[in-house]
């Protein structure tokens, strides 16, 4: 489903502070699989995730999604793919303060122009599935860490993406909430979604629902020839 060919990412190229975050990464991620990118800080996990999720472009190499080459696409086409294909869950919930949970959840769907009543219904259904529908009208400042995390998951799912990308999702969660998060991931898998997670949390990496763990170090996949 997702294929990376000789992907390199260099920051500050040509400057004394030049840093090569990814070095000739070749990778194939299957459909409807849960894949974990594991590695120490600075190993290139988040950079790789951002390239897969069309949030940044590689310095060299190509990325294919469902057979279609996407790394050369003009920005407006990438925006469309990002919006419809990927759901992003970040380390921090990144909810927008000052507006309600419901508004936060509906926000990524606004550019698609879906009627508001239908969108609201969809958002409420998503909140109910994760047991936070009672918080729909609450401002996000009033949520606990776990509730905020679940609200951000509902937001990631509002456009019904086929691929869920989660960057260190359990970094700020306690054990109970981390287990709850993995239960949600299991549900995604059952629904046929592809999930890619960066983590070095054993609770995530050693989970039975994870199909593949890819170890990254110094911008390379371990075991691949340098």
């Amino acid at each position, binding site marked *: 489903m997702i294929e990376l*060919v000789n992907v390199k990412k260099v920051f500050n190229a040509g400057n004394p502070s030049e840093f090569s975050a990814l070095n000739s990464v070749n990778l194939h991620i299957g459909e409807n699989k849960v894949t974990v990118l594991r590695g120490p800080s600075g190993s290139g996990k988040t950079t790789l995730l951002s390239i897969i999720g069309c949030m940044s*472009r*590689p*310095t*060299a190499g190509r990325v294919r999604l469902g057979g279609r080459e996407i790394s050369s696409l*003009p*920005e407006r*086409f990438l925006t469309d793919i990002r919006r419809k294909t990927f759901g992003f869950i970040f380390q921090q919930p990144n909810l927008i303060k000052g507006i309600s949970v419901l508004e936060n959840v509906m926000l990524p769907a606004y550019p698609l122009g879906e009627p508001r009543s239908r969108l609201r219904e969809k958002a409420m259904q998503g909140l109910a599935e994760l047991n936070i529908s009672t918080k729909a009208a609450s401002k996000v400042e009033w949520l606990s860490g776990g509730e905020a995390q679940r609200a951000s998951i509902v937001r990631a799912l509002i456009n019904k993406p086929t691929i869920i990308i989660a960057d260190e999702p359990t970094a700020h969660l306690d054990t109970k909430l981390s287990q709850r998060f993995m239960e949600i991931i299991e549900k995604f898998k059952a629904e046929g979604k592809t999930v890619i997670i960066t983590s070095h949390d054993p609770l995530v990496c050693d989970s039975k629902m994870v199909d593949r763990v890819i170890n990254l170090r110094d911008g390379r996949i371990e075991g691949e020839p340098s």
Partner: protein
Amino acid sequence: MILHPAVIANLLASYIASFMVVYAAYYGAQILRRWDIQSGAELQLVLERKTYLISTLLTYVFGLQLLSLFLYVFTADTLCPLFVGAMCAAGTLNVNGFGYPTLVLKMVNFLLAGLWLVLNHADNQGYDYPLIKKKYLLLAFIAPFIILETILESAYFLDMQADVITSCCGSLFSSERVTGLGSEIASLPAKPMIWVFYIAMSITLACGVFFYRKGKGGYLYAALSVLMFVISLVSIVSFISLYIYELPTHHCPFCIIMQEYHYIGYLLYILLFGAVVSGIGIGALIPFRQVESLHSMLSGFIGKLALASVVLYAAFTVLVTYEIISSNLVMTYEVAS
């Protein structure tokens, strides 16, 4: 040189446009030589990122280029009180040998810049940069013209001497003079030119509407729109100006941009240039209708161009007709030829 704000604005616009076009042409040449969308090489990805910058930059530069034609004519018109003999832009442009060549180049560059903007817009609709080499090839063709325009425009403004006695438009566009393109056009018999104008415009509009509705005859309409552009410019000198000035002997194509005539000339020229750019844009895009990534949108875009061109030519005709009908000039006899 005359230090007038409009002169400085013209020169600055010209230098900025030339600098940007040279910068863009440099990367354009790299794209023409090294572009390979199949490759994942670092250079290819750099070129992909660069093309966003260059095409955005050129969109503004060529937008400025379109405006600069009108700014140039406006400046020439504004400066006419400074030169003995000049009554409008026609006289100011004649103060040295660079004024009219610059104007001609500005008109040519207007059409080329408009064509590039049309190609660029179409290219931006495709996901695989379908027209990238074509648009940079066109840029390589345009760049020398833009630079030449800057050189001529600089020579024109820097060589302006206030003590020059120039010719007025009555002399430059006189049907009684025997030499010069302006006089030759002015000498064309007005009444037959009216027939030529209306018949040619009717055929052009009919062809445009046919193409818009049936999608056939696009090349013919593109060619007709260029022909109609030339006929319209000749008509302005030959008979349209006579009705606007209500004088049977005044053929100047520049006095119509003055306040006394409610700046009607600007509107006429904007309609005309807009119509021809849209028209030639159709001819430029038709060969790419079968390109896979443009297939779904290009027909719609070409249709919009056709509609714009037809509407602009129709508006030009309505405006000309209104001027003729509302004019106090009645041509019951043939204007002297």
